């Protein structure tokens, strides 16, 4: 029992981070810098078995996505980037937690793939619905965004209270 992070989730985390970094190089220098920093944090978290480093990396990815969007990047790559950010964070942490609880030697491949598929599907589904709505509805953005904001805050508050 070495406590080393599991392989499949670590590969998913690093792969997603790398994809986001590659995408960010075409956005804005600030975005690619932040994405690189985020990837480094995820990799260091996996090496040091630190559960907080992938979280810091996720923070950097959020900055990269925001910078990319503000710099006027088309919607689709930014959305793909945000999915990559969540997947990298989620899989990175799972890899470390599974490593601590079960170790790399234990068979946990089905579990890892199961979770990664579920996380990816949730992200793709929610982004897909929002994207579809925004394309089909011809509402001006500020009003739409404010509505969405209210909806999100309500959802989050509900989530906190329950």
């Amino acid at each position, binding site marked *: 029992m070495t406590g080393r992070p599991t392989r499949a989730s670590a590969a998913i985390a690093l792969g997603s981070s790398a994809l986001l970094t590659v995408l960010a190089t075409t956005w804005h220098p600030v975005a690619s810098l932040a994405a690189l920093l985020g990837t480094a944090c995820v990799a260091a978290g996996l090496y040091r078995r630190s559960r907080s480093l992938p979280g810091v990396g996720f923070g950097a990815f959020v900055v990269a*996505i925001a910078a990319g*969007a503000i710099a006027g990047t088309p919607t689709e790559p930014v959305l793909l980037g945000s999915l990559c*950010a969540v997947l990298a964070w989620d899989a990175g942490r799972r890899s470390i937690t599974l490593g601590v609880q079960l170790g790399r030697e234990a068979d946990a491949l089905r*579990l890892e793939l199961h979770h990664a598929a579920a996380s990816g599907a949730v*992200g793709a589904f929610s982004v897909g619905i929002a994207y579809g709505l925004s394309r089909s509805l011809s509402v001006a953005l500020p009003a*739409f965004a404010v509505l969405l904001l209210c909806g*999100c805050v309500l959802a989050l508050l509900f989530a*906190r209270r329950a």
Partner: protein
Amino acid sequence: MSRCRFSVAVGIAAALGLAGLLGPRYVDPTPPAGTALVFLFLAVGVGIPLLFVRRIGRETERPSLPTPERRAPVETPGERVDSLLADAAIERGRTSYALKRLHGRLREVAVETLVAHGRLTPAEATERLESRSWTDDPVAAAFLGHASDDLADARAIRDGASDVREAVERTIDELVRATGRIPSREPAAGIGRRLLDRLRPREPEPAGYTVEPAEATVRATDRWHGVSALALVGLGGGVAVGEPALALVAAAGVGYAAYARSELGGVPQLSATRSVDPEEPAAGEELTVTLTVRNEGEAPLPDVRLIDGVPETLEVVAGSPRRGTPLPAGGETTLAYTVRARRGRHGFGPVRVLARDAAETVEHDLTVPAETELVCRPESAAAAELSLQPAVTRFVGALPTEAGGDGIEFHSTREYRRGDPMARIDWRRLARTRELSTVAFREERATTVVAVVDCRTPAYAAPKGGEPACDRGVAATARLLPALLAEGHAVGLAGLSPTPCWLAPSAAGETGPRLEEALSTHPAFGQRPPEDYCDTREWLESFRARTPAAQVLFVSPLRDAEAARLARSLDAYGYPVTVLSPDSTGSSTPGGRVADLERRVRLYDLRRAGVRVVDWGADDPLETALRRATTRWSR
């Protein structure tokens, strides 16, 4: 996350949204104002995630999990000295407590060494240390020449040696030289290696071997805390700068926040069965353990993590006793791994299960009962022969004695006495000299042997990665006693342990199986060190009351002075003693070298007192050690 921080985050997002509503009137989103906005936004964008970051990485409670792959850790001889050395330092001109204790310990060892090898009294040895005349090395002489309290201005550390470690190593070198051997130590780690060691991730601490908790608990993992940062940043930013992409990013955040709310219903219902093949293994044999866990509930379990309750006394040699898998309703999973059997009785514990819901927000922590008991037969190795000391009882047996009488081997002749058997009259001599004389043969008689196995706490120490001395001792005893029984000796067994174990000497047929049974399953020879202290003086009194006369085979690693004292007391009370000492030292750290030095001084002392000693090295087969010792005794 505290409600306060959450409100702050929501507040910032709302303010950004408001700014977005008013924004386009005051801010022209074309460059260079656009670039300025990027930086302004980044400041906020970093600020908000940072509010979450401290929570992002943390799962609220980390359960302490068993580490069944490894055997429970045992003490390594010298590890206390090593930890003292790691802490020893001179801080602001004052000697640290650890350095004082380390120094005191080395002084004791030095006195013992000089007393044994230099044939001095303790007072003379102390005087030699203080006058610094015991060695030519100025560093070692100065280090031990000082009193423990004023080491801070010890010249050894200030001038001669670069640091405390160097002074200690050189002192140990000199002490080893004083015993007539050549010192060898491991080279100190260079600065590059030390830096690398610091960067390397820490090995997980063994959290304990008992499978907790007693009852099922459930905890939140707080795993998705921080995903709301994505939603907030997206929303606020999207509104502020009028970028639709950012608002859509928020949708992903909201989707995950909703996902995190999906929970597993109720406590998982699981059952477990375990089988072991072969069911009655011999010690040293590898056995396959198969564990099947079944989901008895009606809901599927998306995330089940299992840790089998491998006894802490067994070591997993192949495979893993852990598994992570989803389990559909009525589904089961089977895992197999290999453990190496060890002597004695071992109990498998329940299976520890961590079950999470699909989004991993809630974790159920429970145990599933699956008790299995395993009894290992002792290793079926060939018996080993120990040559006993000459001693006398009334029974005929295989031990040659110094007394003349009936037997086979010629011993002496003496004057004929009325009643001597005709067959023993020396007829040739009568023919030659006309004198009647009788031939006496060397008598061979049986003796009584009691094996005393040291199973006190110090005997459970093991060199790094090696077997505990106590285990080797018990295994050796199990091989030596059958050979003695076969020669017709009465053989008994006593455990030097807080749990009394006593098998009266007997040469009867059932003694062999009884000895084997006791050595493999009696709690006195358990696999874990006893928790109580064993008073060797009391033990000796009860031993003497039970054993009027016998040869004693004392099996002990001689890790402490008490073991050596007991061997000498037994010898002094007239029991011919043979000490079989499995070596449990062996590391080349300073602590390991001190432990080795102390043990060698004890062996030397015992030999000088006339006690027979078999020094059984960690890598030697028992036969080699016995042969070497027998050659030494016959010289």
